[in-house]
């Protein structure tokens, strides 16, 4: 029969393509008025479509009568589960603290490398740019292991200046030493602040990590 249908051509498939898609809406009484009238007129003349409608109605009714399955257990949430679902205010606070501290730390690193905060870097740069000063420095001072000939690298950390350098009767270095002292104090404070910030970041981050919301265990404890 189906093969026969195929042979006779597309008339039947056109027929079902035209009317079949309307049946579902018609059953739900959601078909708009004009279409509904057209469909009803067609149904009064077409047995095939009436039969289709009836069987579709039965399918829907069978779905309607599918039994409701009872829940196997209660799905209420226990207080423990609720706690792990909703992040506590402390979690948010420590997140914020870690972020702010990290930001400040970052800024301090940037300032550090830019030499804005007046550490020994600034003075050494000034010294190296002075041509008259530079020559005697190279001549009289024996090159220390950590110093480059132009004298610039000597400035990194007052500790790297060997005692021999300080003893040399070099006007530049002698002049440089007094200017290092007040900066050194500032830089120490600065380093301490940096260290505290780093510590704060680590502590706050650890706190936040331990308080993070996790998927709760399904079974209530």
């Amino acid at each position, binding site marked *: *029969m*189906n093969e026969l249908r195929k042979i006779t051509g597309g008339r039947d498939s056109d027929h079902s393509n035209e009317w*079949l*898609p309307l*049946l*579902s*809406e*018609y*059953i*739900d*009484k*959601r078909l708009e008025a004009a279409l*509904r009238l057209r469909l*009803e007129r067609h*149904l009064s003349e077409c*047995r*095939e479509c*009436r*039969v*289709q*409608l*009836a*069987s*579709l109605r*039965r*399918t*829907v*009714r*069978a*779905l*309607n*009568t*599918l*039994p*409701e*399955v*009872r*829940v*196997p*257990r*209660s*799905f*209420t*949430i226990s*207080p423990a*589960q*609720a706690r792990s*679902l*909703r992040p506590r205010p402390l979690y948010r606070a420590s997140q914020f603290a870690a972020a702010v501290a990290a930001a400040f730390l970052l800024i301090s690193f940037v300032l550090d490398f830019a030499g804005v905060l007046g550490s020994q870097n600034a003075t050494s740069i000034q010294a190296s740019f002075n041509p008259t000063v530079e020559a005697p420095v190279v001549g009289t001072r024996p090159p220390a292991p950590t110093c480059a000939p132009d004298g610039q690298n000597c400035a990194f950390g007052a500790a790297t200046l060997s005692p021999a350098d300080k003893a040399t009767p070099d006007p530049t270095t002698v002049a440089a030493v007094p200017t290092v002292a007040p900066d050194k104090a500032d830089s120490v404070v600065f380093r301490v602040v940096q260290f505290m910030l780093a510590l704060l970041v680590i502590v706050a981050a650890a706190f936040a990590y331990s308080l993070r*919301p996790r*998927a*709760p265990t*399904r079974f209530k404890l």
Partner: protein
Amino acid sequence: MQVTKLFKTKKNNEPLITGSAVPEAAFSADSAPAEDFLAEAPPVLELIRPEELAENARLDKLVASAQKGSLEAFNELVTCYEQRVYNLSYRLLGDGEAAADATQDTFFQAYRALGQYRGGSFKSWLLRIASNLCYDQLRVRARRPSSSLEALLEEAEEGGGAVLSYMEDEGSDPQDHALRHELLREVGLALQELPYEQRLVVVLSDVQGLSYDEIVEVTNSSLGTVKSRLSRGRLKLREILQKNRELLLGEFRP
């Protein structure tokens, strides 16, 4: 803010009937009589009964209370809706255990996302979460190489290991009972063979009794999409049932 509807449109289908209906023996087109096809009068707007209004108001209060942080209020909502969410999940996944997991995750997610609920139907909001979770589960399942269609059907038949108890009256004729069980089991299995989008819309509409507009809310698709998916889903389901019935009864179409 929840807008309480005062009117509702009456649907043709009565959802979740559990009476002892005589089982429809055949879904094949041939045996259908040319019954009176004329649909009843156009949809009638009817007032919602006062009990329903009171119920809706109570639910609104619970939602507001839960949003402020009351776990107790939220758990009351869970008790109200868990049956529905579980049944939707079960009909979508075909497996009792998976449905239980999906239901639990739905309420976990709902609790976490309470701040984002902005009004409208709370039921639709919940069912939207549930259907998304079921969809994710099915995608995971599809990737597993071991799950063939037969395996899935077998799983569905066993009910996924969970003991399923149906809510129905026991007073009906036992033979009737058995036949009906068989038929409905077939319908349940046939649902599993539908493509997901069609299955979702068919279950929401014909099993859960949602209106077209509620389905639009749950699926977040257009009305036209919902209508066409429902139409195609129902037709396909009928086709599957006819095919299975033919195999069962040993009939061959000429």
